[in-house]
């Protein structure tokens, strides 16, 4: 979803609602946004952005992929997750992670080297608060319908200890769609399923249907920079491997003009709903 108007200015609520409705009407299942703080390009607060998208739509899922948990005050973030969960009537999915961009940590004055420790501690606290537990002096007293908070998906590489947590402690796994080959996708998914994992989502797959087809072997990084026919085959293959969701980003789509309704319909038609 673009976060700049055609004249490269700010997205108003009407703008976000209109764009979100266009995505819902094109038949997509969900709207996702990433999270950056200080990487040379303006970026909205992901939760506020998704809330506006939810307000403009009826049933589509809205999610973060991924929100960098250590950059926020954890009790504050728990309250924001609960608010999102309640206001969207359960349509919000919290894709969470440590992030991997040091610039964002420097910008927020948070130690980059502590990120995994902080991710673990903060998520433990956030989840306890969302369940309505008292932690130290903190107790958010969640609204009865919001107890438990939104489903949480862990953004992590397949290689680390976090995959096990994604499978056993969280509602699913957000695998990175960049720098990952078919082989790694298949191995990662197998490992995840063996650990008991359920929903598996591939995040941030760049798509450019105008690009020249290039060869994609079992070991080269997966991408959808190819013609529509090849893109359809590649998506089909991911579905066959066993992934439940694939989050697409049209290459270079910063402004509304970069992602038109025709683009959306063409992209949606690549993988028919029955799959």
């Amino acid at each position: 979803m673009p976060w700049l108007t055609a004249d490269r200015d700010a997205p108003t609520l009407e703008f976000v609602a209109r764009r979100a409705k266009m995505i819902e009407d094109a038949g997509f299942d969900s709207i996702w946004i990433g999270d950056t703080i200080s990487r040379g390009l303006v970026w909205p607060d992901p939760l506020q952005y998704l809330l506006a998208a939810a307000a403009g739509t009826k049933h589509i899922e809205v999610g973060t992929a991924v929100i960098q948990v250590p950059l926020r005050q954890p009790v504050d973030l728990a309250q924001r997750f609960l608010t999102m969960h309640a206001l969207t009537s359960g349509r919000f999915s919290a894709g969470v992670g440590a992030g991997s961009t040091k610039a964002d940590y420097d910008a927020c004055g948070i130690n980059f080297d502590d990120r995994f420790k902080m991710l673990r501690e903060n998520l433990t606290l956030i989840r306890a608060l969302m369940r309505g537990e008292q932690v130290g002096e903190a107790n958010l007293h969640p609204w009865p319908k919001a107890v438990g908070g939104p489903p949480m998906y862990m953004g992590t590489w397949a290689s680390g200890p976090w995959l096990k947590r994604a499978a056993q402690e969280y509602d699913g796994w957000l695998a990175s769609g960049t720098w990952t080959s078919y082989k790694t996708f298949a191995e990662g998914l197998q490992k995840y399923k063996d650990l008991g994992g359920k929903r598996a989502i591939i995040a941030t797959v760049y798509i450019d249907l105008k690009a020249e087809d290039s060869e994609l072997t079992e070991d080269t990084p997966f991408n959808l920079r190819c013609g529509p026919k090849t893109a359809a085959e590649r998506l089909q293959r991911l579905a066959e491997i066993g992934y439940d969701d694939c989050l697409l980003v049209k290459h270079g789509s910063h402004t509304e003009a970069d992602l038109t309704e025709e683009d959306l319909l063409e992209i949606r038609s690549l993988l028919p709903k029955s799959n």
Partner: protein
Amino acid sequence: MKLGINMPFVRADGDVLTAKDIMARARMIEDAGFDGIWIGDAIGRMRLTRPDPLMWLLPAAAATEHIEVGTAIFQVPLRNPVDLAVRLMTMHAQTGHRFVAGVGAGSTLEDFEAAMVDFESRFKVLSDSLKLIRRLLDGEKVGATDLNPWPSAKGGPPILVGAWASGRWLKRCVDEFDGWIASGGRTNVPTLREGIKRYRDMGGKRAVVATVLVDLTAESTPMKDDEGFNLRCDPAEANARLSMLAEMGFTDVLLYRVRSAKEQESEPNRSRYEADYVPEQLAAIRAIFPAERAAATAG
């Protein structure tokens, strides 16, 4: 003098509002002729569930045309300041500049303990955080941080600071920020009178009295000199009290409807701060200080 009102958190049946419910109530408030929708900020205080105030105001703005949406007051030290700058910038952009950031240090120890943030240093943290937030919203690079605000969002929302009428922050409201928010609930009339005079003498402009509890069914008794400013009285007395604030020079009053004695009687277990709205009640509250009169006393 402008009239804003609080936004309820729960429906009449006690359940949490969804975005659609907030939108319906926001339209009701705008249609009744109020100038703004304002909400407070608490983290698990008094065993009540409280939402993120900024996110709560977004659907309200989405459903309305021109009404202001604001926080009174948002506790800055409980948030990471860079994260908060992004959120304020996003609010400013998304609402088409209808958002007003009423901010402060907070004064409730429980909230700081809950958030695991030091209470004693709150004024220093407020000061440091606001300085940083202001520079980031102006598009400045501060250390490693640069938000690159959208062109039309540069500068960010107006920032009003919640401060005691007697304190030293009053001068900073004049010199560094866009206005002053006084706590109605905790400030008596003589102190408000003294505060607004000092504020005006220093050149202060927008002056808001927040958290003015309203219950027009309450028995009217003359307000005592040590009583927090409130509208728990009949409509005629409420009109007299608001006229007094307008004459003193306040530019905005933010009302907070509390459940009446009768409502409390029928549901004694509900907090009196959790009042929902029906259009007639809003119209009755709006009518105590008609908009024509508000226009006549503006400025």
